[in-house]
């Protein structure tokens, strides 16, 4: 598979799986404004998925559509970060996952929109970047308010941070795909994104009165198809209809 297809799958699977997780909240958020914001976030992410997986299918050249890629691959062909498939947990865990992702996602899209030598990649990134900026603004704001809220909200946010922390390092791991694309000027070297992420996350957590965890272990595997047990359950639900009714058009 070409590096570019792989890259598009990674971007699109991130948004697909995170969009799915966020959409699980529908009607169950702690306050009506959050119901709206979560639906909106999921909607943005699914829209971005259509663009990335559409690109992956086109570049692959086997006639697979974005829907084919979303609905007809099994876990081992998914390329998303492990972080985005982690369970929703309480609302604090959901928010923290979103923040840790947004703090990587938005700069990534910004880089792509400004620098990518691949026109369609840059184009998709430009469309997605504004949405991601809003997601980041929102999650940053809430992390600060809840981290520096009550004792309980502080504790829950600190626990959520510990819960997800060892899953953030995967965003900055590079493999042959990344190196090829970095050399070609299509995508940034993942490791080069880390200082900015560390600074941004560090600032926000400090303002939120939250401590950066001390655990430097990095869970990885998602980007090459080795996932947690959670993804299989996500796909069983997500893919039910197209798999049960393969001849149907919807």
């Amino acid at each position, binding site marked *: 598979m070409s590096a570019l297809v792989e890259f598009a799958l990674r971007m699109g699977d991130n948004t697909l799986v995170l969009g799915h997780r966020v959409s699980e909240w529908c009607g169950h958020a702690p306050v009506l404004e959050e119901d709206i914001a979560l639906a909106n976030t999921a909607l943005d992410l699914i829209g971005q998925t259509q663009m990335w997986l559409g690109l992956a299918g086109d570049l692959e050249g086997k006639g697979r559509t974005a829907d084919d890629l979303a609905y007809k691959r099994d876990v081992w062909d998914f390329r998303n970060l492990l972080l985005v498939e982690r369970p929703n947990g309480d609302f604090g865990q959901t928010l923290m996952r979103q923040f840790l992702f947004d703090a990587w996602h938005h700069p990534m899209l910004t880089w792509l929109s400004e620098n990518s030598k691949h026109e369609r990649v840059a184009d998709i990134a430009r469309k997605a970047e504004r949405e991601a900026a809003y997601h980041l603004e929102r999650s940053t704001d809430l992390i600060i308010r*809840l981290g520096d809220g009550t004792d309980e909200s502080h504790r829950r946010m600190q626990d959520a941070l510990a819960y997800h922390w060892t899953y953030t390092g995967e965003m900055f791991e590079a493999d042959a795909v990344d190196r090829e694309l970095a050399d070609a000027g299509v995508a940034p070297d993942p490791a080069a994104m880390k200082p900015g992420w560390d600074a941004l996350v560090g600032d926000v957590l400090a303002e939120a009165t939250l401590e950066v965890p001390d655990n430097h272990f990095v869970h990885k595997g998602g980007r090459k198809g080795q996932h947690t047990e959670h993804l299989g359950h996500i796909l069983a639900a997500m893919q039910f209809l197209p798999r049960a009714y393969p001849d149907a058009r919807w």
Partner: protein
Amino acid sequence: DERERAFQDRIDAGEKIEPQDWMPEGYRKTLIRQIGQHAHSEIVGQLPEGNWITRAPTLERKAILLAKVQDEAGHGLYLYCAAETLGVSRDEMTEKLHDGKMKYSSIFNYPTLTWADIGAVGWLVDGAAIMNQVALQRTSYGPYSRAMVRICKEESFHQRQGYSIMMKMASGTPEQKRMAQDALDRLWYPSLMMFGPSDKDSVHSAQSMAWKIKVSTNDELRQKFVDQTVPQAEYLGLTVPDENLKWNEEKGGYDFSEPDWQEFHDVLAGNGPCNADRMAARRTAWEDGAWYRDGLVAHANKRAAQRMAAE
């Protein structure tokens, strides 16, 4: 009473009543009940649709459904705001919902069992809702009327999307057709019930009509809905599950069977297929979210205190 007569005169003259205006206590209470119930319906209405968001069969359909649910939560927000102008807080209304002291539309106590139900909910349920809401654009209370104007625009979009799902299903594989017919079979009568009891049994109607809190009667709206929907079902090639359905040339509308009002009252009494699940979901969301709401309040207080100290 002088003021009551003046109030009624304004309504009869087609004027809008605004929050700062004097109004009879009964008018206020009836409005709170009606707007609050409408708002709660938007919120609880997320649940049957949310049941299929994670299983929507294409990315496009998933996006459309997410947008729809987002709109509905937004409608809930407009409506709570309209109700709040009458001097009741959103939290108060929410607690009354959870305590069973306020209602939401019974239609959301029916389950969404196949993907076609998502189509049928848009087509029939939103269709019935719009019938009611279009009329309510002319309601006498200003904030409510204006909320209805905004809501109607989006709802008719939802209804078209629902119908578009039904079109795909009804013209699809045999299983899809079966799903479409099955959805119509299950949701037809519950949709008819959405307009409330027959006029002769409707408790609140006369006063509400005089106050223009209601603008059309239940039976008028129901008739209109049937007349609009039957040709659409025919166009889909689906059969409305009513042996007595037939065109009545004389009245210029369809004759049709009454829904099973016993079922209506059962559902109202809490015995619908999903009442318990819906309320449990909402209560759990509210209770599990308490720390979140408290956290935001505490943060806002801290910031306010800091600003005070800095001044």
